[in-house]
């Protein structure tokens, strides 16, 4: 899929609790240390270390030319990254928040996604665009969008989103090493989630595009990614009491989509629910449900259901809990999978 498998994991050492934010920072650092063509640019990424401190220390270690505070202009940042990549660098761009990446869409859609195709393969653009996304952190308007569907709908872009500390490191390293542009969606409400992890321990750096089964079960599959993974795992635990043994698949990559892992799981369980927090209508769940149906029709005991955010502008923080799909809504969908009983 990409050159990612060639990226070596790091050395050895004792795992300690680390946050996803730290793992992301370490992935940037290791990528920069290993490959002088890797450059980080964006708003406040230098002295401040980014508003989420992901790039903390990079400017100090690698200098302003490798980790650059740009003027405040997303179209300019990504457009400049296109030129840098055309000249052989590997830019890693930080968009400060999901909704502030929109000015860069012209560059993204008209150039970043299409350059390889337009040049018949002569000019790939190895650009990684890091976008903190999603809600659940009490952000005010324009700070909680889930924009993955827009990116997914644009051929030529990889769309990747980690849900664990390990994956944050591994997938970011793989994305930077990829010869194709990658939209790297960082679930901001998981930035402070912790796991035993050591930058010095061997870290699996897998090629992007592989889903993983986070919990195995027999009665239904929850298909999810990013911020909704912890919700699904919790729901799966709660469902045990109801006699449901749920399998949870973490997609990790939305483009490319791992049909194989997902279909294999649904064929085993015969039932599936897609869970994500972005709006349902025209959202990722529709595509995923259709793919599953196409591949597993004869194995399905019930229609593939979707649990998604409502089809409304992301609400103000005081109401966001009603919008975000939580454990109850997932369990409710699981209950609706008893299709025969219902119909």
């Amino acid at each position, binding site marked *: 899929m990409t050159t990612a498998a060639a990226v070596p994991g790091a050395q050895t050492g004792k795992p300690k609790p680390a946050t996803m934010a730290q793992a992301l920072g370490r992935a940037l650092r290791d990528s920069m240390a290993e490959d002088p063509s890797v450059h980080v640019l964006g*708003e406040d990424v*230098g002295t401040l270390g980014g508003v989420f401190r992901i790039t903390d220390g990079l400017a100090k270690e690698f200098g302003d030319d490798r980790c650059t505070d740009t*003027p405040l*202009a*997303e179209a*300019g940042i990504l457009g400049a990254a296109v030129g840098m990549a055309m000249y052989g660098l590997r830019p890693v761009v930080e968009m400060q928040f999901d909704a502030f990446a929109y000015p860069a869409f012209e560059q993204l859609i008209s150039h970043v996604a299409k350059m390889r195709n337009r040049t018949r393969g002569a000019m790939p653009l190895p650009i990684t665009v890091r976008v903190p996304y999603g809600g659940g952190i009490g952000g005010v308007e*324009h700070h909680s969008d889930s924009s993955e569907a827009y990116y997914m709908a644009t051929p030529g872009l990889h769309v990747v989103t980690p849900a664990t500390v390990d994956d944050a490191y591994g997938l970011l390293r793989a994305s930077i090493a990829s010869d194709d542009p990658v939209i790297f969606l960082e679930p901001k409400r998981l930035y402070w989630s912790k796991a035993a992890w050591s930058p010095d321990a061997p870290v699996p750096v897998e090629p992007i595009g592989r889903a993983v089964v986070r919990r195995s079960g027999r009665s239904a599959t929850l298909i999810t990614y990013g911020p909704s993974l912890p919700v699904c795992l919790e729901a799966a635990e709660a469902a045990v009491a109801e006699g449901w043994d749920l399998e949870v698949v973490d997609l990790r990559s939305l483009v490319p989509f791992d049909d194989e892992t997902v279909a294999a799981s649904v064929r085993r369980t015969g039932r599936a629910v897609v869970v994500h927090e972005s709006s349902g209508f025209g959202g990722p769940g529709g595509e995923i449900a259709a793919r599953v149906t196409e591949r597993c029709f004869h194995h399905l005991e019930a229609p593939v259901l979707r649990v998604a955010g*409502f089809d409304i502008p992301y609400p103000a*923080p*005081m109401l966001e809990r009603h919008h975000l799909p939580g454990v109850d809504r997932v369990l409710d969908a699981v209950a609706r999978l008893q299709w025969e009983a219902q119909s």
Partner: protein
Amino acid sequence: MTVQELPGAAAYRPTPPPAWKPLTDPAPLLPDPEPHRVLGTDAAAGADPGLLLRLYAELVRGRRYNVQATALTKQGRLAVYPSSTGQEACEIAAALVLEEQDWLFPSYRDTLAAVARGLDPVEALTLLRGDRHTGYDPREHRIAPLCTPLATQLPHAVGLAHAARLKGDDVVALAMVGDGGTSEGDFHEALNFAAVWKAPVVFLVQNNGFAISVPLAKQTAAPSLAHKAVGYGMPGRLVDGNDAAAVHEVLADAVARARRGEGPTLVEAVTYRMDAHTNADDATRYRVDSEVEAWRAHDPILLLERELTGRGLLDEDGIVAAKEAADVMAAGLRERMNADPVLDPMSLFTHVYAEQTEQLREQAARLRVELDAEQDQHDDNAEERR
């Protein structure tokens, strides 16, 4: 081989292209080399004492508002507050310079300008408290929603002003943006449209030194932000943003110019952000205290107070009275903000479309069921406790 060296070719003499002449003489558009000042200069004698006193009272209230709102973040009553402490002269002048029919297009930092223009102080804070996005009716006060995506409100201001002029209405739009926001494409497109259309717009850039952590020098290589006006064909004006009288004067000139149909003006107010970017930001990471201290001596309230007391227009009693009035405002704000906002989750589905879609009705019904179940649970628990 160059052209001149071609055998037999006539010697090449560069001349301008036949049809070229400058569209506009740049000289009158250029900003003054120094920011315009009134307070503490001879020009102050010409300033209207009534206006100065009004500015003073509003400045003191504005400062108190900033302090109170920041305190509310610490008490968990506000999710976030981008303070404009130090920048009150710009905020207040922007509000006071407009006539009732004019429009204000604030950025997310300009709560104070909106309040000074008459918006209910609590309404102005709902966005930052997190109960609703903006919420107020822009037409009521002619204040566009406080705008978070940077510079995106500027083309709106141009369009509105243009529309008003097409309708023959005497309306000026004043749009506010930070120094960082001037780097966005929307800023440049807005200026260009405004100049080409001769739209009655005033652009006020509050250059407070930083865009979060990024200092002006990393934002622009222009001599000043006001200089950017020239390239678009509109005048650029530089003003001391802490001198309320000067900001008011420069904005009043620009508004009058717009009203006369002479087109837009770009005003750069040189000021300083005394607090961090928001209460969530750590300014010690990117700036030194000595810089902040230097600006403290150039505080907008201090400058105006000196002028007014020096000329006998304000005495100790007047200062105390202004403070007391501000305290009353702050107490009211505190009290009202201390009440939990009552929000109906079902409101999530209203105002998405003029007419609710079938899909939204379904989703609303689902939420209704959830909320009822939650309520039942709540009642049962209460029952058990009894």
